[in-house]
C-alpha cells in the first residue's frame, strides 16, 4: 500500500509551497491505483494519474472539480447525492458507479459512510481495505454517525481545515462545517 498526497489544499484562497494543489490522493493497493478526490486545481491532469478507479467524497469544487470536462471511462465511485450535483454536461463521466454502504472496487472491499459536513453537497467518508489494513478517508468532516467505525482503522486520513477550533455554521437548523484536528483525534479515541 502506498499513499501519495498529490494535493493537500482545501477550499482556501491562500496556498503555499507545500499546500498548493487541491485535494487528491493516489492510493496504490492490491496492484490497483485508486484516486481519492480530484479538486479544481487538477483540471485536465487526470491522464497523469491514470488510476484504475476514482472515488469522490462529495461535490465541492476542491474535491471534484478536477474531473470537469473529463470524458473518461475510468469508473467513478460516488454517492447518489454527489452524482446528482455533478451534471453530465459539465462532467461527462462515462462510467459513474453509484454506491451506498458496503461496495467493492472490483475485488477491493470498501465502505461508504455518510458524514456531517455540508447540506448542499452531502459528504461521504470512505473506509478501504488495503493490503496493509483499513484506511479511513474523511477529508471534510464535522461529525460521524457512529464513532465505532474508527475502531478497526490502521490509518486515518483527516480534515486539516482547522487545528483546534471547530468551524461550524447552522444552515436551516442543520450544523455544517469542519471538525478541528483535536475534535477528530478525540473522536478517534472514542471520546
Amino acid at each position, binding site marked *: 500500500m502506498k499513499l501519495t498526497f498529490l494535493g493537500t489544499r482545501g477550499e482556501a484562497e491562500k496556498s503555499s509551497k507545500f*499546500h498548493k494543489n487541491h485535494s487528491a490522493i493516489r492510493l496504490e493497493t492490491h*496492484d490497483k491505483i485508486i484516486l481519492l478526490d480530484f479538486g479544481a486545481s487538477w483540471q*485536465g491532469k487526470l491522464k497523469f494519474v491514470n488510476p484504475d478507479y476514482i472515488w469522490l467524497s462529495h461535490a465541492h469544487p476542491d474535491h471534484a472539480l478536477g474531473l470537469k470536462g473529463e470524458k473518461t471511462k475510468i469508473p467513478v465511485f460516488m454517492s447518489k447525492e454527489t452524482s446528482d450535483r455533478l451534471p453530465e454536461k459539465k462532467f461527462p463521466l462515462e462510467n459513474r458507479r453509484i454506491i451506498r454502504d458496503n461496495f467493492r472496487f472490483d475485488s477491493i472491499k470498501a465502505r461508504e459512510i455518510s458524514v456531517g459536513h455540508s447540506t448542499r453537497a452531502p459528504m461521504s467518508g470512505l473506509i478501504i481495505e488495503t493490503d496493509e489494513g483499513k484506511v479511513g478517508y474523511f477529508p471534510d468532516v464535522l461529525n460521524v454517525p457512529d464513532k465505532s467505525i474508527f475502531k*478497526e482503522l490502521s490509518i486515518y486520513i483527516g480534515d486539516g481545515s482547522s487545528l483546534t477550533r471547530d468551524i461550524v455554521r447552522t444552515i436551516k437548523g442543520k450544523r455544517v462545517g469542519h471538525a478541528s484536528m483535536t475534535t477528530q483525534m478525540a473522536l478517534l479515541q472514542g471520546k
Partner: protein
Amino acid sequence: MKKTPMTKIIFTHFGKEAIGMKHEKLVQKVSELGKKFCPDISVEVALDNSTFGALSKPVKKSESNQEETLSNYLGSKRQFVNTILKYIPKDTKTLLDPTCGSSHLLIEAAKHGIQIIGNDLCPLAYYYSAGVFQGEKFEEGDMRTFLSSSPVSGWLSKSELKRPEKLESKRLIDGLMVGAYKKFSKGKQKTALGAMSLLLQHYFRGFAAFISEEEPYSKEQVHNDLSKCIKDINELIGEVGGKGKIFNKNIFSETIPGADVIYFDPPYFPAGPQEAINYFKHYVHANSVLMQKKFEEKDPTKEDIINFLPKLASKTNLLIVSTSSPSAINWGRELSKLKKNVKMIGISKSSTGSQPQGERANPVTARNVKEHLFCASDSEIKTFERLEKLLFKLEGYDPSKINDEKLGNDLKLVAVKFSNILRDEGTEFKNKEECLNFAEHIMEEISKRGKITFHPEYKIINGKAEITE
C-alpha cells in the same frame, strides 16, 4: 471502546489557518496536539507530493533530514536472491532469466561464475541490465561529454507529461536521454542508457514530482544523481561486465535458448478473479522517456504464462518459478505436467516500508513479504551451499570511509556471519570475538552518524544498535 490498532493519522485538506502558518510551526503544533490527544499514534501533516508507505515517512526531498540515496524502482526480488541461489546447482554453467527485471539474481549468479542470459521487454529493466552486463566503463572524459548534453524539448517535455511545460528539469533529462543515444555508441551507449534507466527509476519513485508546478530537481542535482548512477553501473561492470547477454524481446513469441537452469519470475498477478495485470502501466512514463517515444506494450495474460511454461521446461534441467502470487495460477499442477519432481519453497522476509518498490527503509515497523519458489526438475531437487562471498576485506577496513548504505549492509552481513558462527559454520572470522569486535567498530561509526535505518535483526538499546543473538 476497544483500543484501536491505528498506527497513523495523516491530516490533509488544509485551510487558511494551517496554510498561513510556517511549515515547521504547523508540523510542530500538529505533533504536539497528537502527543496530547493520541499519544500512541503518529500524527503527521501531508504535503503536496508527499508519499507514505503504510508506515514510512514522506519522501518530499526538501523536507527530509535523512540522506537521500538513489533508489532502484525495480527489483522486488533482491532480498530473496541468496535463498534462490541455494537451489541453483554448483556445477551450473548457464542461467537464463527470460523476465529478468533489473537482474539481481543474474548479477549474483554471474559473480559466482555462471554465464547468464537475460531478457526483459520493459525498457527500464532492459537498459539497466544491458548496461551492467554489456556496458563499457565510463571514463572521466565520457562523464563530461554526457553531462554536457544540452537541454532539449523531448518526450518528457512535450508529450503526455508536458504540463507544466516550463520545467527546465524535464528538458534537461530529455537532453541527457538524447545525449545518451547520440553521443555514445556500442558499450558506452549501453552504459549511458543503463545510467539513465537507474536515474529514471529513482525519479519516478515519486512520479508526482513531474506534474508539480515547481522544478522538482535542480540541474546540479540531476547531474550529481546521474554521476552516482554511472558510478554504480561502472562498479557493476567491473564485477560482472561481459559475463552474459541481455535481450529486449517479447519472449513469449521468441525461440528460447537452452540453459542449465531457467529462472522465471512472471509478472505479479493480483488476487481475485479476472484481474488484469498492470505491470507495464506502472512503468509507462519512465519507459517512454527512456525510449523518447510512447511505450505501448501489453502485459501478458495468465494464459500466456501457462502456455509459456512447457517451452521453458523443454529447454532446461531445472526450472525455477518465483512468484509472490502463488494462488493466481496452480503452479504445482502446471509444473507437474512438465517435470517429474516439483518442490514448493516458501520464503518469507521481513521488510520495512515499501522496499520492494524502492522506498527508503522504515525504521519503525516491519512487515512480512512472502515469496514462493517452485523448483521443477526430472532429477532430485537439492539445495547447495555456496561460500558466502566476502563483501569487505577485514584487513584495513575503516568504517569511517564507508558510505551509509554500504555500512548498513556490512553490519547486516556481519550479523549473518555472526549467526553462522553460532551455528558452528565457518566464516572468514577466526572466532566469535573477532566478529563481535568487527561489528562493534561498525556500530560505533553508525552511532556517530546517527542516521542509518535499521532492519529488525537489530535492537536499538540505549540509542545503540546491537545484534540480537
